[in-house]
């Protein structure tokens, strides 16, 4: 039986540069999952996009064939008109950067439902129903709201889920998922992956899954292709590759795969004196854009968040997608104003008078902005599309009038090298990078100013494990050398376990549990924390996690067992059960 999709000797390049994809071949059977793993910037995304022929204008397909379906039609030569029927209908794709890939002017429901209208000729009502169902399946707590929301009103993970729903509603024969769960917490990730699996079972859908998470590979894939620098390093069935890698690079990858260490040495509770950042009673309520006649809907993004970040330490926030992590971080950055009553204090130096971040004058603001930097969850949108990377990287220095032109350029080069990028890319525009490269750019930019506080919003989600390792090392190094403090948001519990001095777990806008990592991972109390830890996939093919089981997570708050459960807006308080360990429960 011919494979659903086979790629033969694909070669792709940009401009006059050498190929970025060299002789890549692989094939996917119906119902099979092929995992595409590899180094960031190795050409995974480009390969996937070439299947649908949506490459950047500058890209040239320099050779190869992509055969699809029973007729083995070559997608590279198919007339545009027929290609249209393939796209979205037979082959659909989840883009790596969902935040940029949704039209900012159209409601999510509209954009998702459109696929149905295009290919299945269904009525508006029917389409709406199916879209809502899909939203439910990808884990939206309030599908109606998602349907009416505009992309900018959604959290990163919510947008990603919308993208997934869009790719799946039409039930394609082949799904290309380019890092579909980077912005999702592990329970939601499990839910989505489970959903994909179900769909595969039901319709025999083939799946190309690009991911960096070897745990996900182990849980999902039947076969694996490992790529590096545009070349396939190793390809074959998942089992042997994961258990007994034949290629040096694969071995290196597997070795670098982080896991939650079994036994983290318990650390003492964080010192409470020299706090660089302190958030008190931070709540944020958004008003959704409504249609003219409807009453505006309020969204409580985060509520009563209290965080204390001692100097030189790392406080991590983990939690459900859409639980307000980004919002809290942005408030800490003064990029968003919290609801009245919130206080945020920032102490630039030890012993210095604290600055009220919620109420700064412009001089304070300038100083603050120099000392506090942020790595954005969505690096693509945080880089101006019309600025070359050199300009983007030197801009912070320019703003604060640091250094000469040459010094700034050197600094930019150095930063690029630090995050593992080639300084030769300095003259490129942001769109000419891979997702992981952009994420590193964002980190590099945040570091150019030598801040004292860095807010990292999922800074490594798009990085392959080896690069991630490199970046984490870098962060640790700076922390240790320069005493940098981090407010660190991540879904990857392994990363958190490694980096954090304290972890706050958020759910639906509330911090439900807060403790140092050792305590938290060894002795999780809150049902939601437990569910999270259970849902963390491990790169071990022999011990798959039960996707269905873990995706159920802890369920809605009202289903939580006593003393944790609560209904509506009336949660129990966050109580300290042991020194440094707080859990939200009824006394």
């Amino acid at each position, binding site marked *: 039986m011919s494979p659903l999709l086979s790629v033969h000797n694909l070669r792709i390049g940009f401009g006059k540069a050498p190929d970025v994809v060299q002789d890549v071949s692989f094939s996917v059977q119906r119902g099979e999952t092929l995992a595409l793993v590899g180094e960031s910037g190795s050409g995974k995304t480009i390969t996937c996009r070439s299947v649908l022929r949506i490459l950047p204008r500058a890209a040239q397909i320099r050779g190869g064939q992509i055969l699809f379906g029973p007729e083995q039609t070559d997608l590279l030569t198919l007339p545009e008109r027929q290609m249209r029927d393939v796209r*979205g209908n037979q082959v659909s794709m989840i883009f790596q950067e969902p935040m940029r*890939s*949704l039209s900012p002017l159209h409601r999510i429901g509209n954009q998702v439902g459109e696929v149905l209208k295009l290919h299945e000729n269904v009525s508006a009502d029917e389409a709406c129903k199916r879209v809502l169902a899909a939203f439910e399946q990808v884990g939206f707590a309030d599908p109606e709201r998602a349907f009416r929301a505009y992309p900018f009103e959604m959290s990163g993970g919510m947008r990603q889920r919308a993208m997934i729903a869009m790719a799946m509603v039409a039930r394609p024969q082949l799904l290309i998922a380019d890092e579909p769960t980077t912005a999702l917490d592990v329970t939601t990730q499990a839910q989505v992956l489970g959903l994909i699996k179900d769909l595969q079972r039901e319709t025999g859908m083939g799946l190309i899954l690009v991911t960096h998470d070897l745990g996900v590979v182990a849980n999902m894939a039947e076969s694996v292709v490992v790529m590096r620098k545009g070349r396939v390093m190793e390809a074959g069935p998942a089992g042997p590759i994961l258990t007994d890698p034949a290629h040096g690079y694969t071995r290196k990858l597997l070795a670098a795969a982080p896991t939650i260490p079994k036994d983290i040495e318990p650390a003492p509770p964080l010192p409470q004196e020299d706090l660089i950042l302190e958030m008190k009673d931070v709540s944020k309520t958004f008003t959704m854009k409504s249609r*003219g006649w409807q009453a505006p809907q309020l969204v409580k993004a985060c509520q009563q968040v209290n965080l204390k970040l001692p100097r030189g330490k790392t406080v991590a926030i983990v939690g459900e997608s859409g639980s307000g992590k980004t919002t809290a971080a942005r408030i800490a950055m003064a990029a968003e104003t919290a609801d009245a009553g919130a206080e945020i204090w920032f102490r630039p130096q030890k012993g210095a008078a604290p600055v009220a971040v919620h109420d700064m004058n412009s001089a304070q603001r300038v100083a603050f902005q120099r000392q506090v930097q942020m790595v954005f969850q969505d690096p693509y949108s945080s880089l101006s599309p019309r600025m070359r990377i050199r300009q983007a990287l030197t801009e912070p220095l320019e703003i604060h009038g640091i250094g000469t032109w040459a010094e700034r350029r050197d600094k930019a080069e150095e930063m690029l090298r630090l995050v593992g990028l080639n300084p030769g890319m300095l003259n490129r525009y942001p769109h000419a990078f891979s997702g992981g490269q952009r994420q590193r750019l964002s980190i590099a930019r945040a570091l150019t100013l030598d801040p004292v506080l860095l807010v990292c919003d999922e800074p490594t989600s798009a990085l392959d494990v080896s690069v991630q390792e490199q970046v984490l090392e870098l962060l640790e190094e700076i922390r240790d050398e320069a005493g940098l403090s981090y407010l660190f948001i991540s879904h990857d519990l392994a990363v958190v376990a490694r980096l954090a001095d304290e972890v706050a777990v958020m759910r639906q806008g509330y911090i439900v549990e807060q403790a140092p990592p050792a305590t938290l991972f060894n002795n999780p109390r809150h049902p939601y924390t437990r569910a999270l830890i259970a849902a963390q996939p491990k790169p071990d093919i022999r011990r798959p996690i039960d996707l269905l089981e873990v995706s159920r997570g802890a369920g809605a708050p009202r289903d939580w067992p006593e003393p944790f459960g609560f209904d509506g807006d009336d949660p129990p308080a966050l109580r300290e059960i042991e020194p440094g360990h707080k859990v939200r429960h009824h006394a």
Partner: protein
Amino acid sequence: MTFFKYAAYRLVTMLLTLLVVSVLIFVIINLPPGDYLSNQIAELRATGQAEGVAKAEFLRKEYALDQPIWRQYLVWMGFAPGPNGYSGLLQGNLGWSFYNDEPVADVVGGKLWLTVLVNVAAVIFIYAVSLPLGVIAAARSKTWADYLTTFIGYLGLATPNFLLALILYYYGRKYIGLPIGGLMDPSFEGEPMSLAKIWSVLVHLIVPTFVIGTAGTAAMMQRLRANMLDELEKPYVETAIAKGMSPSRMLTKYPLRMAFNPFVADIGNLLPSMVSGSVIISVVMSLPTIGPDLLDALRTQDQFLAGFVLLFVAFLTLVGTMISDLLLVMLDPRIKFAGRRS
């Protein structure tokens, strides 16, 4: 702020602005020394036409023109009662056109809708032509389609309107029998609507629409093309393509809508700018629009007529701006009108 609140707020601002504008218009009209009646009285006196003088004096009193200027304004607007029951704009009395010797309402009446007709035809023409062409020019940039539309657009733009009108009329008449001037065959005037009359109007509209419209079309097309080119590479366009949308549908739904933002901002100005912009065209092409009357009224300082027409145009402008502001909020959900925290 909900949309409705915003709309209400915008409406109130508009009315206030209109009030300010009405004052300014009144001042501007009265700025040049003299006024129609004084000029006329002087001239009539000089030429010994006493009966005219009497009439003019009479009108002066009747329309409160002998009173101080601020009072004249109040009376004109209808805030203060005028002599002999003259009631002012707010109560629907548009005043008297001295130049035409008729109530302003009579002078303006039929012409307003013709003005609107010509301009709406031009607007429709502009949109109907420039939207698709602009999109095509962007989607197929640097092809003959792009170059051809650009060339024709600029040809229209770089030819003085009157010359263009003359050329089109002359050769249109010579080779395809188009009528010269006017908005309908005179024999249809005052006749009830009929198919033949509509046809006649349409045929007569060809050249004026073209002349008034080309400049706008070319401008809109080129700008649209530029904005579209910016949007075409955005990731959301790729998403749309990946959905399997047909190019036309995709282009109009996504990038066009994005690229449209600057035009929405200017929608408000379309009508009024053409009303005043087409004055000269109307004069040379003998279109029975309000434009020529405005010009005459201004030249002769026929203040009520000039005042009303200007106020009307101002009103159109303000309503237009308001609509475009509202459209902007509707079109782009990201837009908030709140101030920036500095």
